[in-house]
């Protein structure tokens, strides 16, 4: 078995034994531990409170010498997360620009993302408009983020027919969302892979 597979399996075992608060991680299909589905529950006291946010985690060939590729599948209204779910986080980049190190785990990355959600970094934005709003009108930012969370991350589906296919459900909801997000729907996972190779 490849070195990275062993490591990811060990990480999954650890998470299963001591699950981190508000975070889950599991392979999308049983025979491939390199494509994972993570969820983060928004921390209490933040506009993302009790929203369930899905993320795609792809383990690259060079893992753990290179960070995992992590992307939000659920739209997030946040200065450091763009409309296609990309996350601006130093931990997800290699030195010298970033601070990824091979002792950091996927769990560590997810915890860092959970805390980035709680404390945005408007000085290094991916979404200029949202960052500006965060700085100048925090109340309005929180209101929008909360609304966004309710719309996309609260799993309440008006009719359960949509429930059988959450990806379609999410996209449908997305088109109903604010202008900002409907212009760009999250890319399919195939687009994701092309970029990796």
């Amino acid at each position, binding site marked *: 078995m490849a070195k990275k597979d062993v490591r990811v399996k060990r990480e*999954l075992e650890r998470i299963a034994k001591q699950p981190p*608060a*508000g975070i889950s991680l599991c392979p999308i299909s049983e025979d491939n531990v390199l494509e994972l589905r993570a969820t983060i529950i928004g921390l209490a006291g933040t506009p993302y409170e009790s929203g369930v946010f899905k993320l795609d985690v792809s383990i690259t060939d060079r893992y*753990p010498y290179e960070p995992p590729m992590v992307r939000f599948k659920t739209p997030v209204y946040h200065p450091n997360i763009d409309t296609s779910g990309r996350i601006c986080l130093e931990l997800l980049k*290699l030195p010298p620009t970033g601070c990824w190190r*091979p002792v950091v785990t996927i769990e560590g990355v997810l915890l860092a993302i959970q805390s980035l959600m709680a404390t945005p970094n408007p000085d290094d934005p991916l979404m200029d408009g949202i960052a500006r709003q965060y700085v100048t009108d925090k109340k309005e930012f929180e209101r929008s983020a909360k609304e966004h969370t309710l719309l996309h991350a609260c799993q309440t589906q008006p009719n359960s027919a949509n429930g059988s296919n959450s990806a379609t459900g999410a996209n449908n909801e997305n088109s109903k969302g604010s202008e900002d997000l409907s212009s760009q729907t999250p890319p399919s996972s195939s687009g994701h892979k092309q970029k990796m190779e």
Partner: protein
Amino acid sequence: MTSSDLSTRIQMEISKLFPLLVPTSPDYTSYQGFLEVEGALFRVSIVAPNYPYSTGVVFHSEWKLSELLSKDQDTLAKWERKEMLLDSFLQDLHGLIIRCLENGGNSRLDLEKDSIPFEEQLDNLQHYSAIISELKELGTANIESLSSDLRDIAIQYEDQNGEDHVMKVRISNDDTGKLSFEIIDTDLPEKIIKILQKEPNITKAYGAFCEQISVLNGLWSSFTLIDKNCWVLDPIHPRKADMYRRIFISPPSVMAQLTWDPLKPNQPPEIKFQGADAEIDTLRCIYEEHLEDWDQESNVLDNLCLVLQLTSLPQPPPPETNAVSQTVETGECSICYTVQLEGKLPEESCGKCLTSFHTECLYEWLKMMPDSRQVHGHLSGPCPNCNTIMKCPCPHALA
């Protein structure tokens, strides 16, 4: 004039000039209280063994006044020896304090800031009487503790199950002198505290507090059932105020967060699923289909099995004898997470944080670091864990 006449006259004089100075012995040889000087109050204690004369007087004062008079100790000592009547002594002392206040520019300002003016003390008095009447209404039997300034109160309530609940309240008075209170600690959830906070006074808030506890008791017993019979992930140490539980539905991949609304404790919880898409989508469909079957009369575990169509919920794992050693394998490489790599053990270890690595694993990383330097068959660069510079032999040089 008899000596007793003199004695009475001097005492009357003193009580007229210094109303806050009270004799503490029937023969007027000792006094306790305050000297009021230009609006500032100084706590003093005076013993005059030769009353009505000041000879041999012993004068103690709070530190601020002692500080103020520190330069005039000689004058004071002179007066203490001189034979004069006690009221004149006090008047002279009063005059001396005024002169000291006028001379001591900065220290005077400090005194004005620090000492509480007479009027404010009266306000405080009203404030305290207001608190006391509030406490009377509340009944002292339930008061668990009271701070010495009467501002922090802990009120206790024993529910029908004999369990104690405490509400801690901090009292303050606004500009108009009206009492207001803030609930600073209870075992109730935030949403309920907000409601209690709207009550007009502490007694009403306490009444509502007791009522809410009775309402929430059913929910708390549900939580106890879940904590005993389910594999609970969060919260690790549940408090009474925690209105949610995250539990495993099928470990290790599917979990659900159950959240109750404390304002509607009899309604079924909101359930959010976490895990692999396919599994949670199926679960959510089942849940939505059966949610209406939730029966308030039966217990929470049966209800959960019913709405999720499970025969049983996953049991908590047996308590591990040594949880740490299970998850952090001692002696494994912190990069590849194995002990043996092609028969080799993790031989490199950071001198500072003691994290160990296989030579190959560490070399692979240091090779990528722009700051690493190769010197005499070694590569030196930052430790992947703590960034301290460490050395790693080049594996090919070893081979």
